């Protein structure tokens, strides 16, 4: 055990049992996994990713490149960041984590926070800034990534100051303190994302701050020498933290290797902890650690640890000496932690005297304080001799590790430069320095310095690589928050949804809507149910919930002109109280959406859209009104959710509607196809439309959505004598396809013109409309464009899969020319066979010809037909 008898901020009265690689150990409240492992003399925590070299704890914080562990399903965790809890089971990794196939069992949440001042970093500078801001009554948030505030001060004899300051921060109601919370992304207008670790998951804070104070401190950087990666080699500041904060001796015999004053206090701290200081190697005194050698023992699975160092004069002359040690504390100076500053577009400059990059121009409303601002007095850096890499002792630089997590050495950097690369960004990508999950926190600036040295350039001229979020790895679970399962995407429900659920509907997702797909009776499969539902619509009466259609209220004296421009067909002649089907193209002449347009009153219209296209159509219309046709006096209002829509369909539909509205004249002359009537039934106000999407006599009954369920139930009751049958979207598809009615997005895919669909009849020749000019392009007039056709498989039972490619020759050699594809394919109760719609090159010239769909292992032959299979003369619709 290397636990000191006293000292540190751990609670020796509260032991914690944990295991590492299957071996049980004991730590204390206040430990993290790294300190507890060191206390138990576990020197080798992981193995490196490429070379498999043993690695130990290198740092005491977020910058840790070596001690990567797996805890349960959480992978690539830094041992320095894993709080010790009872029963913790951790496993050391060999540079790569293991992704779990299990769902992430943690609970994650997201919170939005707004404040005047956000202070990032709860060390001395951050606490001071928060105290100051807290006086003003402003909302202040102070975040720190550690389990407690204090940063470097923890265990450094500042306990009284910390206690007083934190006490003062806790009193103002508008100061919010977050620990275990790492700010990992700093975006425009001071949006800062903060990942907070909670016992069984985490919380993502999305903070928007008027002013951000970055008190992010500084990361110590190592010096680079041969075999600088052995377990037992750690940052000097980390060694101090383990001794002072965690009461752990990270070794018994230490050597200190430094180029600055920050290690001055370390020797005393080590000695007080009973660690002998065998040598202090200071490049300013002309000496350096040239190489290290492993411990001779090597047994007990702990081999490969540090056994000692070779020290040599910098000049190359003079004598070398070997010093045995198991702890090498290294300090190459400090890098202000400016990741967030740089993400927020702050600029850096190289400070020659401090030998580090410091903030230059800060972005608006961002302030940097303390060590992050280059005030390294607190770190005791004092005088520093910029020094980066100890020369190779005739070796090939292949053990001078620059990026420990990525196993990248000085040899790799030299190779990159020898290929002609000069930019630090190129060298980063060639070598992968800084691309590990630690993002090269201890490696990046050393990379820059090595390049500068090699190229004979100033360090500042080489610069740093771009800092990108996230500053620390963030789990996908945290990003998802509670948007999981049923809450993943909004689920939109119609007013009739409870009835559908109660009557066993199987649902289909259409956009965000849940729509009944079919209503199986007993244990019917989808095929049987849909055939039955279709038969009811064709032979009796059936009912469908059509509430999901998009609905746009259109008002204004220029409404007709507006509609004439939006739709390919004209609306001048449409009388009040009537509807008309309309088709819409984009400027490229391709079909965009379709729907029925109702003329409700003077200057008052209502357009329906496809279920999925509602938002896009409204945006499209608004875009034209607001940017191109600002002179048109037209206003649009979405009323999709205001209306519930019950479609009553089939030859007996008139009987059902008559039962509900006994006084309303329903004969074809009084209430013809495409007419609108207002009435009421049982206190429910209803707007009736004779619209059909099935080709049958049909009525769409609209009412305010809060009456939707009551109206549906009234229709079911009135339809009972006629065996009214609810049907879903699948039967709807079959019925419309039998009539050759297209569905935008199924037959069309943004490359289909109305002419391709055989819908030239809907293109007005008398007026301009969006897309019209494109129809005159040579390409849109090509005779060999894909055109809508019907297909009848030769085998009446064979169902073509939707999306199947069509070819001319049944046994053509591969690659064979594909001339089209199946867009819709169903079994038809009416036709007593299968049928399909397809987009086929020169389709209308191929009527009567055979085409073939080569599928896995067999070929389906089909005859090309007109894309209408049922009641071509519209007798039933108009009856």
């Amino acid at each position, binding site marked *: 055990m290397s636990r000191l008898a006293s000292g540190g901020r751990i609670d020796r009265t509260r032991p914690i049992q944990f295991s590492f690689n299957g071996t049980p150990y004991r730590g204390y409240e206040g430990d993290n996994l790294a300190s507890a492992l060191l206390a138990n003399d576990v020197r080798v925590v992981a193995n490196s990713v490429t070379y498999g070299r043993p690695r130990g704890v290198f740092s005491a914080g977020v910058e840790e490149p070596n001690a990567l562990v797996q805890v349960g399903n959480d992978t690539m965790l830094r041992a320095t960041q894993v709080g010790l809890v009872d029963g913790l089971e951790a496993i050391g990794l060999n540079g790569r984590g293991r992704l779990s196939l299990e769902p992430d069992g943690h609970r994650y*949440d997201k919170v939005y926070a707004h404040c005047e001042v956000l202070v990032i970093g709860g060390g001395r500078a951050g606490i001071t800034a928060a105290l100051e801001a807290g006086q003003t009554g402003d909302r202040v948030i102070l975040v720190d990534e550690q389990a407690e505030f204090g940063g470097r001060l923890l265990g450094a004899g500042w306990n009284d100051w910390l206690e007083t300051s934190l006490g003062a921060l806790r009193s103002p109601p508008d100061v919010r303190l977050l620990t275990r919370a790492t700010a990992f992304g700093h975006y425009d207008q001071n949006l800062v994302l903060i990942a907070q670790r909670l016992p069984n998951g985490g919380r993502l804070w999305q903070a928007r701050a008027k002013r951000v104070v970055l008190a992010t401190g500084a990361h110590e950087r190592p010096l680079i020498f041969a075999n600088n990666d052995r377990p037992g080699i750690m940052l000097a500041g980390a060694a101090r933290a383990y001794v002072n904060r965690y009461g752990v001796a990270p070794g018994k015999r230490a050597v200190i290797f430094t180029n600055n004053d920050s290690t001055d206090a370390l020797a005393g701290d080590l000695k007080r902890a009973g660690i002998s200081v065998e040598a202090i190697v200071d490049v300013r005194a002309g000496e350096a650690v040239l190489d290290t050698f492993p411990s001779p023992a090597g047994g007990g699975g702990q081999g490969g640890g540090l056994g000692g160092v070779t020290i040599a004069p910098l000049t190359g002359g003079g004598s070398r000496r070997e010093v045995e040690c198991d702890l090498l504390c290294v300090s190459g100076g400090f890098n202000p932690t400016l990741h967030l500053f740089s993400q927020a577009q702050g600029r850096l400059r190289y400070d020659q005297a401090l030998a580090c990059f410091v903030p230059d121009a800060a972005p608006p409303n961002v302030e940097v304080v303390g060590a992050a601002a280059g005030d390294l007095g607190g770190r005791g850096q004092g005088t520093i001799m910029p020094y980066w890499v100890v020369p190779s002792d005739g070796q090939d630089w292949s053990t001078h590790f620059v990026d420990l997590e990525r196993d990248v050495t000085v040899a790799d950097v030299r190779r990159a430069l020898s290929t002609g690369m000069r930019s630090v960004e190129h060298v980063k990508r060639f070598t992968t320095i800084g691309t590990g999950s630690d993002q090269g926190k201890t490696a990046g600036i050393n990379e820059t310095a090595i390049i500068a040295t090699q190229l004979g350039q100033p360090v500042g001229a080489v610069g740093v690589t771009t800092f990108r979020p996230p500053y620390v790895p963030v789990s996908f679970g945290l990003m998802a928050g509670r948007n999981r399962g049923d*809450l993943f995407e909004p689920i939109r429900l119609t007013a009739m949804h409870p009835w559908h659920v109660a009557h066993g509907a199987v649902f289909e997702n259409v956009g965000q809507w849940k729509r009944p797909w079919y209503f199986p009776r007993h244990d019917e499969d989808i095929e049987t149910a849909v055939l039955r539902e279709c038969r009811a619509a064709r032979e009796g009466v059936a009912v469908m919930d059509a509430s999901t259609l998009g609905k746009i209220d259109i008002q*204004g004296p220029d409404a007709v002109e507006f509609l004439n421009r939006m739709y390919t067909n004209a609306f001048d002649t449409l009388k009040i109280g009537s509807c008309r089907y309309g088709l819409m193209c984009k400027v490229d002449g391709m079909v965009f959406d379709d729907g029925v347009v109702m003329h409700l009153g003077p200057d008052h219209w209502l357009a329906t859209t496809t279920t999925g296209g509602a938002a896009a159509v409204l945006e499209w219309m608004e875009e034209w009104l607001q940017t191109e046709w600002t002179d048109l006096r037209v206003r649009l209002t979405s009323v999709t*959710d205001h209306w519930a829509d019950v479609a009553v369909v089939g030859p007996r539909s008139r009987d059902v509607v008559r039962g509900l509205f006994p006084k309303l004249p329903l004969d074809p002359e009084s209430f013809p196809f495409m007419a609108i009537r207002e009435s009421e039934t049982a*206190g429910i106000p209803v707007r009736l439309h004779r619209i059909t999407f099935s080709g049958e006599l049909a009525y769409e009954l609209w009412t305010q959505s*809060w009456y939707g369920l*009551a109206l549906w139930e009234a229709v079911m009751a009135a339809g009972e004598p006629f065996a009214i049958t609810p049907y879903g979207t699948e039967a709807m598809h079959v019925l419309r396809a039998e009539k050759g009615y297209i569905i935008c997005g199924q037959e069309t895919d943004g490359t289909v013109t109305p002419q391709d669909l055989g819908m030239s009849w809907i293109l007005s020749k008398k007026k301009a409309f969006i897309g019209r000019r494109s129809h005159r392009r040579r390409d849109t007039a090509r005779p060999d464009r894909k055109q809508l056709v019907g297909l009848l498989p030769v085998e009446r039972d064979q169902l073509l899969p939707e999306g199947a490619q069509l070819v001319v020759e049944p046994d053509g050699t591969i690659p064979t020319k594909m001339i089209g594809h199946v867009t819709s394919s169903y079994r038809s109760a009416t036709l007593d066979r299968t049928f399909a719609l397809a987009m086929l090159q020169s389709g209308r010239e191929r009527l009567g010809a055979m085409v073939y769909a080569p599928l896995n292992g067999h070929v389906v032959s089909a005859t090309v037909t007109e894309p209408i299979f049922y009641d071509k003369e519209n007798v039933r619709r108009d009856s």
Partner: protein
Amino acid sequence: MIAEAVRRSPLADYTDRFAALSTATDGALSIRELPFVSQVDLRADPKDSDLMQRLATAIGFALPIVPNTVTSREDRRALWLAPDEWLVVGPDGQQGAIERELRNGLNSAFGSIVDVSANRTVIEIRGGKARDLLAHCVPIDLDARVFSAGRCAQTLLVKAHVIIECRDESGLILYVRASLATYAADWLLDALTE
């Protein structure tokens, strides 16, 4: 004519769950649906001062011109939605009257008046914890010092469009699309566990 028995609000099934919540939090948080609120969407030109005056006379108070604010008189309120768009709100059953008043005010001027009463349902969240709850699902700053009584905003409740109105210190009113009401309610109830 209103047939009470046949109308059903989008959150009719949530009444008990909402009531239990109020009890469980000892009143620190209460959620309830305010069903069948009359809502009329108005588009009119705010630069036409005669028209604005006529509309004010017709409904009995001036429409708000300051973005994201609410004006009201007795049980009528008008929420600013856009420079030329307002949502005029009243108690159940008044949509016809509001429509008529607005139409009188509009007279022959260009604009639009649409009954959208069933387009959205209204959720009232009250209590000291109301804003904390919404911080889990609404991105804008709802702090009382920023979003005070008489303010409104259009934003997202997670992924659902929502209008939020601050009626008084402890009460926030959410106008949610009818089809998305259960999504919003499920989210609010789930957020309570945090």
